[in-house]
C-alpha cells in the first residue's frame, strides 16, 4: 500500500526543470515558430487592405453579404458574414484559415517536444536529469502557449484600427483555437507510439472540425447549427468579432483547453516513458520487397494516397463552387480583375476554373518537393548507406523515388481534374487538360529540388523555400499587383491559362526541357559526389 502511495505523483518536483526545457524548446524552434506565426499574421493583417481594394464602398460590401446569405457552398468554405464592416469581413474571410493555421502550428510544436523526443530516445536522456515527470509535457504546452500569445498580440495590435474590442476578440479566438489543438495533440501524443502518427491523427481531428463547421455553415447562414458549435473552428466565427462580440464564446476555448490538458496529464501519468496506449502492431516475419524501387513505393505510398485523396476532394469542392463563384464575381469589378489576372481574360467561369486549377498546381509543387526530398531524408538518416552497399546503383535508387515524385505529380493533377468533372460536370476534357498543363511547371520545381539534392545535399531543404516563394508569388502576386516581370520568375507564370485561353505548346515544351535538364544535372551531381553521413 505504501508503495502505491509513494508512486502517486505529488508535489512541486513534478515540474522540476520546466523552465530550462521551455527555454530549450523555444531555442530549438527559433526558426519554425516565428515563420509559422509570421505567415499567419501576414495573412490576417494584409486582409483589410485587400478587402478595401475589392469592396471599397459600403454598397459593394452589402452586396457581398447578401450573396453570402444565399450561397451555401461559399459559406461552407469560408463561413457566414455577420457585418459589412472591413473588420467583420476580415474575420470572416481569414478566420477559419488563420485558426486552422494556429492549430497546425500548435500541434506541430507539442508533438515535436513530446512524442518526437520519446520516439527518438532523447527523452530518456533528458528525463534522467533533474527533470520532473510532468516537466516535458508542460514545457511543450507552454511553448505552444508562447507561440499563440505572440500571434494574438500581433493580430490584436495589427487589426486595432478596425476596432479595438473586435481585434482583441479575434486575436484571442485564434490563440484559443491554437491551444485547443495544442492540448488535443498532447492527448494524442500519449496514445500513439510514433510522432508521425500523432501528427496525422491530430491533423485528422482538425480536418473533422473543418468538415463539421462546413456542414453546419452550409445549413444555416448565422453559424447557429449544432454542427458548427461542435467545432472549435466554428467557435472562432461564432465569436462574431467586429460584429457585436460574444465574449462568452472564449470560455469554450478555455474549458476545452483545460479539460483536454487535464486528460493529457492523467494519461501521461499512467504510462511509462516511450510507451503508448496504442502499441505498434507486429509486421510480417518475411518480406516481398526485392528492389529499391519497391522499397521507395512502400515508403511513399502513404503520402501519395493522402495527396491523391486531397486533390480529388479539392477538385470536387472547387468544381462545385464554380457556378456560384462566377455569379459572385461578376458583379464586382476588382474581384473580376483579380480572377482574370490569375485565370485569363476569357469567360468568367473559365477564369475561375483556371485560377483554381493553377492554385492546385502550386500546391502540387509542395508534393513534388516533399517526394524528392525523401532521398535526402533517407541519406541523412543513415538508411541509404547500407542500402547502397548492396547491388543497387545510386541512380537506380534515386530513380525509384523520382518516378514517384514526377509521376505522382501527373497523377494527382489528373485526379484533381477528375474531381472537377464530378463537382462541375461540364467541360471535362478541357479541365483535365488544364490540370495536366500544370505538370511541366511542377516538374521544374521538382527539378530544382533534385539539383539541390544532387549537388548541394546539405542545402537540399532550400527546395522548400523555392516552392514557398513560387506559392506566394502565384497566390498573392495577382492580388497585390506585383509587376509581370516578377511574376514571370515562377515557372507557373508562363503556363497558358486553360481552360479558356489558347493552348500554347511553346512554354510547356520549354519548361519540360528545363525540368529534364535540372534532373539530369542533379543526378550527375549525385553520381559524382560523396554520400554524406
Amino acid at each position: 500500500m505504501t508503495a502505491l502511495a509513494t508512486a502517486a505523483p505529488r508535489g512541486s518536483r513534478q515540474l522540476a526543470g520546466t523552465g530550462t526545457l521551455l527555454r530549450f524548446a523555444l531555442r530549438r524552434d527559433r526558426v519554425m515558430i516565428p515563420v509559422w506565426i509570421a505567415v499567419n499574421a501576414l495573412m490576417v493583417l494584409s486582409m483589410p487592405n485587400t478587402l478595401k481594394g475589392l469592396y471599397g464602398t459600403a454598397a459593394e460590401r452589402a452586396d457581398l453579404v447578401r450573396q453570402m446569405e444565399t450561397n451555401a457552398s461559399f459559406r461552407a468554405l469560408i463561413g457566414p458574414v455577420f457585418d459589412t464592416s472591413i473588420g467583420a469581413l476580415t474575420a470572416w474571410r481569414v478566420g477559419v484559415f488563420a485558426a486552422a493555421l494556429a492549430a497546425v502550428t500548435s500541434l506541430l510544436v507539442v508533438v515535436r517536444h513530446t512524442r518526437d523526443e520519446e520516439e527518438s530516445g532523447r527523452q530518456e536522456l533528458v528525463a534522467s536529469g533533474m527533470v520532473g515527470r510532468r516537466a516535458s509535457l508542460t514545457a511543450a504546452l507552454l511553448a505552444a502557449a508562447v507561440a499563440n500569445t505572440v500571434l494574438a498580440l500581433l493580430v490584436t495590435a495589427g487589426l486595432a484600427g478596425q476596432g479595438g474590442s473586435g481585434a482583441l476578440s479575434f486575436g484571442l479566438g485564434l490563440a484559443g483555437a491554437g491551444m485547443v489543438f495544442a492540448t488535443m495533440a498532447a492527448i494524442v501524443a500519449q496514445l500513439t507510439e510514433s510522432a508521425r502518427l500523432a501528427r496525422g491523427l491530430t491533423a485528422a481531428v482538425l480536418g473533422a472540425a473543418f468538415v463539421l463547421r462546413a456542414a453546419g455553415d452550409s445549413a444555416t447562414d448565422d453559424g447557429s447549427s449544432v454542427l458548427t458549435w461542435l467545432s472549435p473552428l466554428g467557435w472562432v466565427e461564432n465569436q462574431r468579432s467586429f460584429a457585436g462580440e460574444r465574449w462568452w464564446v472564449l470560455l469554450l476555448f478555455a474549458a476545452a483547453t483545460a479539460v483536454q490538458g487535464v486528460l493529457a496529464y492523467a494519461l501521461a501519468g499512467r504510462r511509462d516513458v516511450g510507451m503508448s496506449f496504442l502499441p505498434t502492431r507486429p509486421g510480417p516475419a518475411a518480406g516481398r520487397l526485392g528492389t529499391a524501387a519497391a522499397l521507395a513505393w512502400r515508403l511513399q505510398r502513404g503520402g501519395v494516397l493522402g495527396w491523391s485523396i486531397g486533390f480529388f476532394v479539392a477538385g470536387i469542392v472547387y468544381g462545385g463552387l464554380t457556378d456560384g463563384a462566377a455569379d459572385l464575381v461578376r458583379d464586382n469589378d476588382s474581384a473580376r480583375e483579380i480572377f482574370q489576372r490569375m485565370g485569363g481574360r476569357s469567360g468568367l467561369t473559365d477564369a475561375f476554373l483556371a485560377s483554381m486549377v493553377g492554385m492546385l498546381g502550386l500546391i502540387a509543387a509542395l508534393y513534388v518537393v516533399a517526394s524528392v526530398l525523401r532521398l535526402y531524408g533517407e541519406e541523412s538518416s543513415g538508411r541509404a548507406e547500407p542500402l547502397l552497399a548492396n547491388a543497387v546503383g545510386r541512380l537506380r535508387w534515386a530513380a525509384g523515388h523520382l518516378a514517384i515524385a514526377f509521376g505522382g505529380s501527373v497523377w494527382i493533377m489528373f485526379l484533381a481534374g477528375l474531381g472537377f468533372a464530378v463537382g462541375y460536370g461540364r467541360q471535362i476534357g478541357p479541365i483535365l487538360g488544364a490540370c495536366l498543363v500544370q505538370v511541366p511547371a511542377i516538374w521544374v520545381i521538382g527539378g530544382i529540388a533534385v539539383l539541390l539534392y544532387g549537388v548541394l545535399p546539405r542545402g537540399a531543404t532550400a527546395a522548400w523555400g523555392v516552392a514557398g516563394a513560387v506559392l506566394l508569388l502565384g497566390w498573392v502576386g495577382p492580388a497585390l499587383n506585383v509587376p509581370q516581370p516578377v511574376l514571370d520568375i515562377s515557372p507557373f507564370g508562363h503556363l497558358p491559362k486553360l481552360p479558356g485561353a489558347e493552348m500554347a505548346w511553346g512554354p510547356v515544351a520549354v519548361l519540360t526541357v528545363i525540368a529534364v535538364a535540372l534532373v539530369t544535372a542533379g543526378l550527375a551531381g549525385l553520381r559524382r559526389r560523396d554520400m554524406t553521413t
Partner: protein
Amino acid sequence: MTKAITVSGLHKAFGATHALDGLDLDVERGEVHGFLGPNGAGKSTTIRVLLGLLRADSGAAQVLGRDPWSDAVEVHRRIAYVPGDVTLWRNLSGGEVIDLYGRLRGGLDQRRRAELIERFELDPTKKGRTYSKGNRQKVALVAAFASDVDLLILDEPTSGLDPLMEEVFQRCVTEERDRGRTVLLSSHILSEVEELCDRVSIIRKGRTVESGSLADLRHLTRTSVTAELAGPPNGLAHLPGVHDLDVQGRRVRLQVDTDKLDAVLRQLSESGVRSLTSTPPTLEELFLRHYQDELDEVSR
C-alpha cells in the same frame, strides 16, 4: 586469384581534415582480417571508400578485383555490409528488411536465415522503430550472414550486443571463414579481434602503422618475464632490448623485445632459475604501444 581487398596510398580529405593519409590495406581471400584503430582513425572512412560511397582523393583501391567506385553495383553483388549503427525504416518489420537486403545482394539462404534468427533470438515481426540498438544490429547481422556473398565488411558490428550474442557472433564469423568467405572486421574490441582474426591492420590518423598476422606482430613487441632466481641477478641492465627492469632481491621483472628474449634467458639461467613466467604481449598491449604517446598527451 586476386586478393579480396587491396588498398594503397589512399588519401581522403574532408575540408581541412585529412581522414585518410596514405592508407594501405591488404586482405587475402578466405581470411578474417582485423581492422583496428581508435575512434576517428579513419576506419569507417576507409570502409565507405571500399563501398563506393566516398570517392578517394588519390590512391588505389580494389575490392574483389574491381574498382569500388566505378563498378560499385557489381562489387556489391558479392558483398554484405553491416554498419556500426544500423538505422531501420520505422514501418518495415525486421524480417522484411532482411529479405530486402538479401535480394539486393547475391540472394538469401532461407535455411540459414531461419537458423540465424533462432540463434540471435531475433523477433523478425517487430517494426523498425521498436527494435533496441542491439536488435537493429542483429537484423543487419542476420541479413549479412544469410546472404550469398564472398566478402563481409563489418564495421564495429557488435556494438550493443550482449556477451551471449557476442559469442554467437564470433561463432558465425568462424563459420563464415570455414565456408571460405572473407571477412573484414573493423573493431576496437581487442579480445574479439584476437579471437577471430588471422591477420590485423592497425591504423592511426589515416595511416597503416602495423599489418600482419598476430604472431608476426607479437614478434615485433615485448614479452613480459617474471623470474625467481637462485642467486642475485647481474648484467641484465646492460643487455640490449631490456626495458622496465625491476629487481627486488632475487625476484626479477622485466620487459624484453621479443627477438632479444634468447639472450635474456641465457643471462637469467646463469644465476639459476627457480621459477619463470613469460607472457607474450596481448593485442591490447600491442595496440596501446602504438598509441602510447597519445595516451601520454591525454594524461599530461
